[in-house]
């Protein structure tokens, strides 16, 4: 059931995670050997339910784990052909890999514009270049330009998500680790955000690894997907193939082989068969 064939024959990986294990507080084993690759210029989805380890995987890559007393105890993380698991988030952002955290995490008392500018902290290429990129972010998110003087804490959830993505863009990333961009947003807004992600990917060449619970949307925009369950990758494949996979339909898309089932049947079926019991 698992296809390990590379995404496309030519695309070199920008990021590859090789069999990592993550332990919190020296005792709690959260990731039990996760491997994945993101091709240069690709959008790859990391799917799974609450607590499956999606956020931990992203934080392991961006090395924000350390601030939560977690550590990668096994395996390697390779970004642009160099091992990065010993680097600080600051060094990683400098190299072009930045995370947009779940729940947006804007700087609430700072204006939208200050939020965006704070994303340029690691840059050394001068005020003019930063200014130009600010205009670029405003092009992608015209709504932010309107609200640029507002305190971020008082803006809507969608605007905050845009601010968080825009702030990451200000660091001139090659790759963005996007954690649950759809969380708490209206379906229409989710669609809008994903459209922008797609545009950024195509026009700016930014690679994305996105962790999502909203499997449906994620698999429509991603080219490749991994499904994570209890700290292990249980299935991966081309987005198209995953969308058509019976198990994925049953567990994550809410439609079974013979159309929608009653909730009772679904539960029964789930109890009978999961990938990992």
């Amino acid at each position, binding site marked *: 059931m698992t296809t390990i064939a590379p995404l496309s024959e030519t695309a070199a990986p920008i990021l590859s995670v090789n069999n990592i294990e993550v332990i919190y507080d020296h005792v709690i084993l959260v990731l039990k050997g996760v491997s994945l690759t993101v091709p240069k210029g690709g959008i790859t989805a990391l799917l799974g339910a609450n607590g499956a380890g999606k956020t931990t995987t992203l934080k392991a890559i961006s090395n924000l784990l350390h601030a939560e*007393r977690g550590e990668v105890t096994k395996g390697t993380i390779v970004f642009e052909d160099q091992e990065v698991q010993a680097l600080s988030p600051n060094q990683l952002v400098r190299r072009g890999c930045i995370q947009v955290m779940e729940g947006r995490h804007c*700087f609430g008392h700072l204006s939208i514009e200050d*939020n965006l500018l704070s994303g340029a902290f690691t840059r050394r290429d001068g005020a003019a270049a930063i200014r130009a990129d600010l205009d670029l972010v405003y092009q992608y998110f015209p709504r932010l330009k309107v609200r640029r003087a507002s305190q971020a804490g008082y803006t809507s959830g969608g605007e905050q998500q845009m601010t968080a993505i825009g702030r990451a863009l200000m660091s001139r990333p090659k790759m963005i680790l996007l954690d649950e961009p759809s969380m708490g947003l209206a379906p229409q807004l989710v669609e809008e955000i994903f459209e922008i992600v797609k545009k950024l990917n195509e026009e700016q060449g930014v690679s994305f690894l996105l962790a999502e619970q909203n499997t449906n949307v994620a698999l429509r925009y991603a080219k490749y997907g991994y499904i994570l369950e209890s700290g292990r990758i249980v299935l991966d494949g081309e987005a198209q193939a995953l969308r058509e996979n019976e198990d994925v339909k049953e567990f994550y898309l809410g439609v079974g082989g013979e159309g929608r089932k009653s909730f009772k049947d679904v539960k029964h079926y789930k109890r009978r068969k999961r990938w990992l019991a």
Partner: protein
Amino acid sequence: MEFLNSIFVKPFADMVGAPDFLLQVLWEGLVAGVLYALIALGFVLIYKSSRIFNFAQGIMVVFAALTLVGFHEKGVPALLAVPLTLLVMFILAVAIERAVLRPLVNQPDLILFMATIGITLFLIGFGEIIFGGENKVMITEQLYIPTGSFEFEPFGGFVSIEQKDLTAVIGAVLLVVGLLVFLNRSKMGRAIRALGDDHQAALSVGISLSTIWVLVWFIAGVIALATGIVWGARAGVSFALEVIAFKALPVLMLGGLESVLGAIVGGLAIGVLEKLFEIYWGQPLLGGNTETWFAFVLALVVLLFRPQGLFGEKIIERV
């Protein structure tokens, strides 16, 4: 009746009756307030950017002042001693970041608070070994701080303003304005504010904790030196100076731990109010010496009604 009169009527009658004396009292209060505000600012900056309540702020004032005087005693010209002292404060900031903050990152706030008590005790001991325990005189004249006084005769009365106090006020205002511009306009200032808002997010955009911490502790050191010079010029330099840091506590309660504006307004308000209370109510009614406790009582009353302080940051919560 007589008693109520002495509380509610007589003090105000005195104020109106001798406006020149009132002006003098207000000025004295303002000068003290400027110093309280400066020390409180040091607290606020460190608290905002690292959630550490820095108990060592007071001893840093003493340490900075002693270092300055110490350099001068060793024969270094006064104007060269100032940048040298700043260098020492910078080295101190780096040392504190390396030896104390970095190993303790992610520990509970209380542990970091205890660590700053440790820093305080260390600086007291270390300072005494190097500089000795005896009182010193601030090198006011060598720093070209004028020591004369301006005298005015408003309302046919007499007001005297010491030039070193005036210098202190002007210096403090410049320092605060510079700090505000730095916080609001510069990249590093923005990073300090961002760190105060959301630690994790600041890390995620690549803001380097250690850089910001060194910077913030160095700024606190600069403020400490400024406070040390001014206070030292008024009262001499000794380890007893450390207690003025406690005067910053009610300022923080009044102004809020996170507000730069609160520290300034709170400091000035406490300086002026405690002086007024001492002169017009304390001395005639309570036998004086109210300045040691008045600020704390005032802060307690404020806390009853506004637990976050007058200018505490509003917690933005979206519903």
